[in-house]
């Protein structure tokens, strides 16, 4: 029920900038969150609204929600209704890459204009504190012995958590198409399944499990970043345990197709200014997000790489045929 209420709830909010005289202050932006209020993309859009106006980069920012189908409904709207509109941005991220393939979306990210990558969150694989699985090697041995007997709990099918479970199996040399991945609606239910000891391992963003990890109810098997997390120096990475696995749940902004090079530069400059502001830094700290800023051109290259990687995994696990 929760997600079905969430996914359709839509909000339009207007925030007016305070008294500001900065150079960009004439800029009026619209940011679309292709999801319902309360989720990660919505949170990113509203945080951008806050940072853009508070730092004086934009005069006004309006946030709207177009929920549905992993963001592909919002994506379709951006590509058609907003074509050539130089004042609209859409928040998106890693999850949308998979959703496009899964939902056979007629519009893809290649049709949008990449503006910037903003944040990234490492994923974490955990087991209940009383589990016999001690580290990544233990888990790898079990997956190799019989992938079907290792049950994974995480978010929606085809999302970042699912892709990580498949990548793990593939990386350690097991058959990724045989993994027993159980999607739960929202991190909450998956967390309950973990704490109840119902499943072998759980996957989520580090933040979602942080409280339980610190309380000693869950044990970290590995984090998916290249180096240990600053806020969790005790949690080992997969890489240091010899499993060559790196997945980041990144979030970014794109603009509609058909905008001019000049419009692209204006948007890119504005977002860069925001991403380097102290207001944005404060938000990142409060929310526990990592700064992963990449400018327009670098982000475009990065995005292409991720699209190839995700499609390969989704074919392997049979999500896309």
């Amino acid at each position, binding site marked *: *029920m929760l997600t079905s209420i969430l996914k359709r709830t839509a909000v339009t909010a207007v925030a007016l900038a305070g008294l500001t005289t900065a150079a960009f202050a004439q800029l009026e932006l619209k940011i679309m969150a292709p999801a319902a209020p309360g989720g990660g993309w919505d949170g990113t859009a509203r945080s951008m609204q806050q940072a853009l106006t508070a730092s004086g980069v934009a005069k006004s920012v309006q946030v709207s929600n177009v929920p*549905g189908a992993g963001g592909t*409904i919002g994506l379709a709207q951006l590509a058609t209704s907003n074509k050539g509109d130089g004042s609209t941005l859409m928040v998106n991220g890693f999850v949308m890459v998979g959703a496009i393939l899964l939902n056979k979306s007629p519009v893809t990210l290649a049709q949008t204009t990449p503006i910037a990558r903003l944040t990234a969150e490492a994923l974490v694989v955990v087991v209940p504190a009383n589990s016999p699985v001690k580290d990544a090697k233990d888990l790898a041995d079990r997956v190799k012995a019989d992938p079907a007997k290792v049950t994974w709990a995480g978010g929606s099918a085809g999302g970042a958590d699912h892709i990580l479970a498949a990548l793990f199996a593939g990386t350690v040399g097991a058959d990724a198409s045989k993994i027993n991945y159980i999607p739960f609606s929202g991190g*909450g239910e998956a967390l*309950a399944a973990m704490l109840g000891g119902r499943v072998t391992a759980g996957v989520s963003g580090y933040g979602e499990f942080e*409280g339980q990890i610190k309380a000693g109810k869950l044990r970290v098997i590995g984090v998916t970043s290249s180096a240990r997390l600053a806020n969790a120096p005790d949690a080992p990475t997969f890489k240091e345990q010899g499993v060559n696995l790196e997945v980041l749940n990144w979030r970014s902004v794109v603009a509609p197709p058909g905008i001019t090079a000049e419009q692209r530069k204006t948007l890119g400059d504005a977002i860069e200014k925001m991403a380097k502001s102290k207001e944005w830094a404060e938000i990142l700290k409060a929310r526990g997000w990592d700064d992963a800023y990449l400018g327009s051109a670098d982000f475009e290259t990065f995005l292409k790489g991720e699209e190839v990687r995700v499609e390969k995994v989704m074919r392997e696990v049979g999500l896309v045929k």
Partner: protein
Amino acid sequence: MDTLLALANGFSVALEPTKLLFCLVGVFLGTAVGVLPGIGPALTVALLLPVTFKMDPAGSLIMFAGIYYGGMYGGSTTAILLNAPGESASLATALEGSKMAKAGRGGPALATAAIGSFVAGLIATIGLAFLAPWLVEIAIQFGPWDYFALMILAFVTVSATFGDSPLRGLTSLFLGIMLGLVGIDKLTGQARMSFGVPELLNGIEVTTLAVGLFAVGEALFVASKRLREPEEIIPIKGSLWMTKQDWKRSWAPWLRGTAFGFPIGALPAGGAEVPTFLSYSTEKKLCKFPEEFGKGAIEGVAGPEAANNASAAGTLVPLLTLGLPTSATAAIMLAGFQQYGLNPGPLLFAEKPDLVWGLIASLFIANVMLVILNLPLIGLWVRLLGVPQPWLYAGIIVFATMGTLAVNPSPVELGFLFGFGYLGYLMRRYDYPVAPMVVGLILGPMAEAQLRRALQISLGDPMILLENPGSATLLGISFIALVAPFVMKGMNRFKAAED
């Protein structure tokens, strides 16, 4: 003793004038958005999040909790007066409540809903304060198999909403279950019955179906027979307030409703709907005047209304103790906690006792404020029924349309609303009950997902449903509830034959 001390400390925080003001603003907003169909507490809290960023964390969280409780109070108003449940949790309330309103007993219906909500809110908040740490230990032991068994029990009790013909009731139920199959399958991510329409990938929205079938369908039906056999609506008959008899018939359903709502609300995937259905059918079974059910029995309002408010407090148990959001509003409140760098969970009680206990204490205060705010409003609300029918029903259609568009501004959604409205008209015209269809849409997908998760965990062995004591017990109760009426009937016939 520690809990009492902590709670007393919480009250000293919550009784500060500024906190009281936040609480008042919260309950007022909550009541208002609860009454307007379409705008719910989840949306309101989401809108306020960016505004409250710089405000005092305790104050804003107290306001959010006030909105949450207030929304649960306000939701019953439209369900009772206009037969238009604005959210799925007040569906069961609409069944008897709207019949009472038509018979001139709107006042007592609203009163039993408000006082029932107060009683349930009070008991459930006490439960939250004193039992949360233990309850949550039990709640997380609830596995997918247990949820599946709970859904089956809810399915069995749906028959209480069937009216006279089980066949028609089952037809309606299965239509709802079929609608529940539409959209992306949660477990494999594949689209089902979406016919290439992207809007269908998310499935059929429960509120659209409920508002279409109930409100729009009712309006069309009333309009269709207005010239031939005009229906008499009596705005007020007898007392506006509850009679002695009403009190006598309400208090036990309030307590039973609370007993369903609080523990099920505390389950990570329990929700507010299942306890309202269980309460409705229990009251129907226990009622001394079963012939009144379907015609406006006060027990059918008192029980479900208490159940849905108690479940709201139940939802806060996993939210505060584990950081598990189990409703849309709770999910956004979690975002609210996080914007202040607070992580609800086992450590929050130890790290920020003032904030947590202040919040819990403010829930008691919000509850008192709500009942004081709502009781005098009853006289005003009931006057709505005095509005001439064409105006009233035209207004309902306007509000239903606005509400649907506010939630999802999409022409496809609007088409669904009126398609379901026409279907609701046809079902009334040919005497099919509409409630089982909505219940089917709510329970069908939940039962399916939980069963498949259970089987995935057991590697395909169905015995898992009977091996676990929780699910085995619940399935046993469902079985007894299903066959008992037939057995009793047979026994009676046997006795009659012997005589």
